[in-house]
């Protein structure tokens, strides 16, 4: 497996379990600076758990999880976030009692000092014009697609170096999926590394440079998107339902 040079995030043999049930078995993968990588697999394969384990949201063990030069395995989620790793959960987890603007405020953190322009609500509103129109509206009154945009914008407010994006296209209408793809490409253009978990091969192919395939809690394959698209046997074995 390719390692090391230029990797901002490196997951090294990580196990994770919910109570007695072990979900991840020695997962290893890496994400280079500015790169977009898809973690693909079926329902229950361990995609979301991998991202949660990195973020410290499920108890994980293993050799290490390195992010921007720090070993973050076992750190509290807020410390990991402060190092510059953003997390967008699959079920959005918008604060529905708060306004759009307040949701962004919760995500706000000081920039890491990487020379990039810090995200502000106004800058985000220029990328997500829908959000600008409803900045004072309660998040509970937004559509699912709008909430999905808000959850990404909220994470960007923390000025992350890399973002873990959990199932961004799940349950969204095709037109919204397209907007999501644009949002991911925009992050890439901003130089933010993205690790996204995805079941939808077309979405992954549209945004990702590389892909890992996970099955039963272990990485089974690593390769370029083109390679997976060309390899019918691989898709048959790990991705089709």
């Amino acid at each position, binding site marked *: 497996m390719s390692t090391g040079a230029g990797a901002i995030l490196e997951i090294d043999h990580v196990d994770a379990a919910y109570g007695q049930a072990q979900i991840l078995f020695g997962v290893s993968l890496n994400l280079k600076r500015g790169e977009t990588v898809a973690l693909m697999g079926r329902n229950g394969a361990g995609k979301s758990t991998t991202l949660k384990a990195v973020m410290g949201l499920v108890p994980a063990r293993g050799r290490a999880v390195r992010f921007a030069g720090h070993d973050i395995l076992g750190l509290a989620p*807020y410390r990991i976030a402060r190092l510059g790793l953003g997390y967008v959960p699959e079920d959005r987890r918008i604060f529905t009692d708060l306004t759009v603007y307040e949701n962004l405020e919760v995500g706000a953190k000081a920039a890491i000092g990487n020379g990039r322009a810090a995200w502000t609500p106004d800058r985000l509103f220029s990328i997500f014009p829908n959000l600008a129109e409803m900045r004072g509206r309660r998040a509970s009154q937004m559509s699912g697609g709008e909430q999905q945009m808000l959850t990404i914008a909220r994470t960007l407010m*923390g000025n992350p170096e890399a973002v873990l994006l959990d199932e961004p296209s799940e349950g969204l209408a095709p037109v919204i999926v397209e907007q999501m793809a644009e949002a991911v490409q925009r992050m890439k253009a901003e130089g933010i590394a993205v690790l996204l978990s995805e079941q939808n091969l077309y979405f992954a192919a549209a945004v990702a440079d590389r892909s890992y395939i996970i099955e039963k809690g272990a990485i089974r394959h690593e390769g370029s998107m083109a390679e997976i698209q060309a390899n019918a046997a691989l898709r048959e074995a790990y991705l089709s339902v």
Partner: protein
Amino acid sequence: MPDLSFLLLQTLNGLASASSLFIIAAGLTIVFGVTRIVNFAHGSFYMLGAYFAVTLIPRLFDIDRSFPIFFAGVLLAALGVGLIGVLMELVLLRRIYRVPELFQLLATFGVVLAVEDLVLKIWGPLDILGPRAPGLRHAVEILGHRFPAYELFMIAMGPLVLGLLWLLMHKTRFGVLVRAATQDREMVGALGVNQALLFTGTLFLGAFLAGLGGALQTPKLAANPHMDISIIAEAFVVTVVGGMGSVPGAFLAALIIGQLQAFGILIFPKITLVLVFLLMALVLVLRPWGLLGRPEAGHGRVVLPEGILGLKPFGPAERILTGGLALILVLLPWVGDSYLTKVVIEVLCFALAAFSLNFLIGNGGLVSFGHAAYFGLGAYGAGLLVTRLGVPMEPALLATPVIAGLGAALFGFFVVRLSGIYLAMLTLAFAQITYAVAFQWVEVTGGDNGVVGVWPSRWAASREVYYYIVLLVSAAAILVLRRSIYAPFGYTLRGARDSVVRADAIGIDVRTHRWVAFTVAGAAAGLAGGLFAFAKGSIDPTLISIPMSIDFLVMILVGGIQTVLGPLIGAAFFHSIKDFFMPLTFYWRLLLGLAIIAIVLVFPRGIVGGFESVKARVSRAGARQGGERAGA
């Protein structure tokens, strides 16, 4: 028909008490929203606010006897309590955010007990009346009636505090984070917010509000060492009715309850306490998450204690142990003295009650905070039948499970419609209703003094004979309950405990099963209460009080709720310790409180559970070694 001006005055009275209820409950609801801990010690904060105020304000008056000084004293007292809240967060709460809610509740109740004794030690048992507020000592003429100016000031304080809280919650980053964390604190952490600081700040705010409420009361209500428990029940009702975590909800609920109390006292002077709890029961049944609350989101979900897990029949060691214990119990009146026999009678009664409680909690996952209600119903049922109607002991004892079972069936009908913390609060409310009836219906129940002369029949009057009756009856009842834990009924309850959705999906009528379980547990507790009443010869409201319910919880916690026999051991251990230490020290509540906290922190699986996990660890280690050797 009272005239209109009188009704207006009564409304004003209601508004004044609504204000003070709201200020206290707002703190409780904010703390619950963010930390998900139902903080019993909130009542202690309120009490401390009152004591700080009555100590501080007279000294400040040496500077200048004016209203600003008075108000500064109130704020200083509240500030001091806020700092105590910070201390409690740093020392205790921080360590228990991840333990099951039942244990959190118990730990905060441990703080209540400890603070009560410390207050007694520092300020003594006598009421201390605070100075009246300069400038507000007069009465104002309203439509021909005189109304205290201070009450008008209090009426204004409620909306003022609501307004300030609104500003805090919407215009500051702290407030926005509090509201976000109330909804999904894990996500707030994943966005880079240090929850520890947020929680500490929240505890400061919550304790400050409780202290403020207590300090503001002092010109009207003397500081006394019992004000913690009396306020906490009311504050719970306000937060639950309003929706836990909702500040506007608390305000609305306080308004309603203030008026209910003000007018209830005119119409039903005897049952004002009952009215309030009936309102709560009604609201919870119609809107299980309160007026302005929202249903538990998946992320802040309720953590149940482990409960009874892998059931296995007794092995040889357990059989020998149980047999030996039974033999000792049978021989006890011959080996022990009369005092020991008395203590063991009480232990047996409590053992049955605790066992029936764990039948609900460990087996059914229904965390009841008011199990004393059914114990008390049995005790009062037996006591009143014997003393008021002249019924002999035997039929009276037989009636106790029926009476308590009917009570449990009635209350349980509502209880099983809820889950988690709301369920616990409703059981507490029903227990308080029962307590209020016993306390306020003096003609029948004897009120605070209770009833004496609840003696067994002549043939059973000797302590030894009565001992055997208790032994036989409680052992039989425990065996029946234990049998049903091992029966399909018990498996069904545990299935529903672990996943209501899955149990529903395979066609189990979860509600009915739980209702039956609640009724059976209530009946068993009632039997225990009846046995206890004849042992003591008297009944009084302490048998139904919150501390009694807590005692039962501590017994099963000490014994370990994930084991079948834990509650029995817990009852024996707890009662003998209490019986031994209570006469020796003035500080048994302090000791008990600290012990509860220690158990929650270091021994959350109880005695029997702790023993079993050590056993499991040893055998796992042994297996691993064996495996390695086999592999080598």
